[in-house]
């Protein structure tokens, strides 16, 4: 389970954890700062003004394809009143940039665009420059203005001084001032504009350096040999089986870790295939067909998110009680390019080029793995193939590091497709019971949510290399699991979106939720997974929201209410209401109950569905409406149109936000329609693009209309994981609207759709 899940709800809860609004990015993930990081409270850790007046910004939030590098460059240019091009942004290099924990979980926008970290560093530097200019020019700072790196008198532009003249090339020696005045969005000239990502020309012409393209002098190529089945341990390796092969440098064995190093990559691939390795048999896997029900019976670590302690009597009094169970499968990150890293371990020192989301943790955990001092390891982020969470980035960096250490030379490792997919940390599987009571008037008076989720391993954090497969094979254990009962919640925390939007969210003496229902209980059971798991884009939040938002639709249908109107009836948070209304308005939503009247029970039909979320309770808001076509003869579902309403506070880059909303919605659609990890009694059987499907560029792509809601006076929130959180539920609700059949398990394969159609009453 993700460290942030661990903190925010899906795992063992650390009570009182503060998310958005926390002082540092570390607060977002709950890991203490790593030793050796440039101090986060010093402006010099974030901003440098060179002798020529050019500005370098240092950030711990990296570009993963989500556009955050461009937005950060805009932010610094804006606060320091220079053109976009004048700022150079360096991110995620333990030799240069501050520890900002992970780049994950839609946490970068809130971390660096509010009154702390990078934004405050830039604002503090700007104030200091004005103060220095005021002294130099002998006029009060409030009579000065800045543009293009020059501060001049508002009334006489000839009285001026440049940043280079004021501080060029020198340290600022300033402490970050969280009260340093930021520019209001109404004054923005660079931030808030749809500036194009500067790396695109290099990417579109094949010049961009991905980690896959890192080449070091004398670099060799490694390939790993993973166990053939789950639970197998190494019995023996016959090194002679590859001894005669051209280019083979070394066979490396460390406990259950096996790898080959060769001079060229194709030689390494062939040697790994030919190497004779004996493994013990599998320890076995539970049957996939009963898996979702079987996890209810396992020892669990329980967690209560809200508990008004009156749901039982409230449900007993209710005029109607509804109960439904939803299932969400294990799913993959399934990066397009299998993961790659380059390691250069020489004696006591190591340099690792890694696509990891957490360079500082890669440093400390690699130190454990290699037996080196963390201060002797430098981890440099290099772009990987899009990760969407914990893909193979961390594990392949360990692979490269172990192999490089064994040969004393730089080694590049890229995983095979199968090694990437069969051994990655999958997004958790879920079984979710929803139960609600309705009053005689048809309003919801009590809501219970009880969920079971299976996890094993996670992000390695600061000291758990065994949370991913390579560390485990090399002899480290994953995070320990201890079952135990839940404590009563002492504060509101909806980081996992376990709490539906429609309840009051009463905890710690106040209502933290976004809804009105006062009788509420949310209980989560964490159990051990047979597969490695880790955060996959919108972890926990997506499966929970799928259940909540489908169930809300079931309740609305039961009382013959319009699904939008029924949601509004139970919401009290203006931003949740805002995105819901924005999506409905854009879609020209017709107010009526579902299912759609007059649709035939066979052949092709269409319908519409809606869903909404306050991502992590308060870190971004998205409402979505979809229109689907269902072929009731084949069970095929086609999404025709989508309308997205999105609110992430002040919009830093509208094109970047739109790109995230569109991509998130379509990725969520692929997950809702076709993506599912499969297994037999000993191994994962979905290990390539034939056995684990992803909607290709060639499918019938829906039109997507995005309504971006700018909130210049609110805090910046997350954006990248919001649209993906709601799309599955909206599609499920649209299938119901079109057909009258409720489908409670993703992916919505034609077989499952036909089964649901058959079960219609």
């Amino acid at each position, binding site marked *: 389970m993700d460290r942030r899940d661990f903190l925010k709800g899906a795992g063992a809860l650390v009570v009182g954890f503060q998310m958005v609004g926390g002082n540092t990015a570390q607060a977002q993930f709950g890991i203490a700062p790593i030793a050796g990081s440039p101090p986060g409270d010093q402006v010099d850790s974030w901003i440098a003004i060179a002798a020529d007046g050019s500005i370098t910004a240092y950030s711990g939030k990296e570009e993963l*394809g989500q556009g955050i590098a461009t937005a950060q460059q805009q932010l610094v240019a804006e606060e320091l009143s220079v053109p976009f091009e004048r700022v150079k942004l360096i991110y995620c290099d333990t030799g240069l940039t501050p520890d900002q924990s992970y780049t994950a979980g839609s946490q970068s926008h809130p971390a660096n665009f509010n009154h702390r970290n990078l934004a405050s560093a830039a604002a503090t530097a700007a104030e200091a420059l004005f103060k220095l200019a005021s002294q130099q020019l002998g006029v009060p700072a409030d009579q000065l203005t800045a543009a293009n790196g020059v501060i001049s008198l508002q009334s006489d532009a000839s009285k001026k001084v440049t940043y280079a003249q004021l501080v060029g090339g020198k340290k600022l020696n300033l402490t970050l001032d969280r009260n340093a005045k930021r520019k209001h969005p109404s004054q923005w000239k660079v931030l808030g504009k749809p500036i194009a990502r500067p790396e695109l020309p290099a990417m579109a012409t094949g010049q961009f350096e991905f980690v*896959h393209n890192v080449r070091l002098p004398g670099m060799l190529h490694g390939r790993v040999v993973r166990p053939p089945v789950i639970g197998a341990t190494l019995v023996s390796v016959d090194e002679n089986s590859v001894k005669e092969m051209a280019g083979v440098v070394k066979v490396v064995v460390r406990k259950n870790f096996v790898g080959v190093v060769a001079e060229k990559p194709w030689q390494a691939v062939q040697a790994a295939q030919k190497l004779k390795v004996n493994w013990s048999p599998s320890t076995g896997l539970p049957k996939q067909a009963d898996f979702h029900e079987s996890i209810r019976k396992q020892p669990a670590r329980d967690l209560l998110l809200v508990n008004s302690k009156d749901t039982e009597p409230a449900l007993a009094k209710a005029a109607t009680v509804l109960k439904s169970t939803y299932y969400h499968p294990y799913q993959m990150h399934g990066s397009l390019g299998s993961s790659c890293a380059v390691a250069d371990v020489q004696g006591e020192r190591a340099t690792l080029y890694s696509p990891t989301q957490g360079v500082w943790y890669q440093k400390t955990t690699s130190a454990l793995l290699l037996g080196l001092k963390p201060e002797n390891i430098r981890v440099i982020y290099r772009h990987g193939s899009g990760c969407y969470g914990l893909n193979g980035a961390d594990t392949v960096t360990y692979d490269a590091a172990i192999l490089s250490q064994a040969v004393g030379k730089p080694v590049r490792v890229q995983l095979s497709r199968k090694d990437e997919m069969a051994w990655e940390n999958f997004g958790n599987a879920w079984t979710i019971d929803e139960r609600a009571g309705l009053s005689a008037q048809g309003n919801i008076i009590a809501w219970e949510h009880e969920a079971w989720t299976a996890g094993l391993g996670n992000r390695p954090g600061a000291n758990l290399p065994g949370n991913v497969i390579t560390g485990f094979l090399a002899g480290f254990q994953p995070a320990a699991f201890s079952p135990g009962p839940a404590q009563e919640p002492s504060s509101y925390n909806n980081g996992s979106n376990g709490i539906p939007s429609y309840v009051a969210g009463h905890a710690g003496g106040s209502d933290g939720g976004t809804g009105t229902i006062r009788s509420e209980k949310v209980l989560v059971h964490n159990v051990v997974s047979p597969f490695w798991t880790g955060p996959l884009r919108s972890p926990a939040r997506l499966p929970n929201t799928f259940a909540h938002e489908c169930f809300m639709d079931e309740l609305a249908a039961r009382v013959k209410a319009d699904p939008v109107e029924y949601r509004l009836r139970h919401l009290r948070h203006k931003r949740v209401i805002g995105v819901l209304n924005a999506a409905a308005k854009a879609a020209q939503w017709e107010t009526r109950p579902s299912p759609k009247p007059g649709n035939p029970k066979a052949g092709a039909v269409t319908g519409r569905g809606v869903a909404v979320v306050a991502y992590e309770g308060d870190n971004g808001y998205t409402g979505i409406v979809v229109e689907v076509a269902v072929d009731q003869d084949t069970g095929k579902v086609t999404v025709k149109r989508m309308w997205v309403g999105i609110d992430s506070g002040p919009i830093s880059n509208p094109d970047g936000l739109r790109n995230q909303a569109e991509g998130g919605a379509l990725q969520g659609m692929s997950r809702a329609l076709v993506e599912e990890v499969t297994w037999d009694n000993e191994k994962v059987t979905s290990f*390539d693009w034939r056995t684990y499907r992803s909607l290709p560029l060639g499918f*019938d792509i829906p039109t997507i209309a995005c309504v971006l809601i700018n909130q210049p006076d609110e805090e910046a929130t997350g954006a990248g994981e919001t649209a993906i959180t709601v799309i599955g539920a909206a599609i499920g609700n649209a299938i119901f609207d079109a057909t009258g059949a409720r489908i409670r398990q993703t992916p919505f394969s034609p077989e499952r759709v036909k089964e649901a159609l058959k079960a219609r009453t």
Partner: protein
Amino acid sequence: MSAITLKVNGQSHTLELDPSTPLLYALSDDLDLRGPKFGCGLGQCGACTAIVNGTAIRSCQTPVSSVAGKEIVTLEGLGTPEKLHPIQKAFIDEGAAQCGFCLNGVILTAKAFLDKNPKATRTQIQQALSTVLCRCFTHTRMHAAIERYAKGRA
């Protein structure tokens, strides 16, 4: 090992290679090209695409021995940031990328198809891309870029 001459982006290179080596490794390792990428090694995703004698092929599944002497074009062979090919410009203008890893396969597959089928319909273009993957799902922008390019060349 044998000497194999590959003609890549207009230049000839003679390399000492095992003839069964997939073209992808020759391009990305021996010639240090960054355009073609290892995605799956199974011909299922498109990341390794190159254009050989005008047809988009999966270089991870193509032995070097089968393309010796043929005209091989990679993403680098279309244009540079300073002098973009119109299809590269269309992708940049539409902001049609997230992580960027799939761009090689998407751009080259679309270009090779439109070169042969300049009047292709939207449905035909989609069909041509039916085995090309983008896991960031930048699909709408990529199709907009391809359509922009197709219209520009018509």
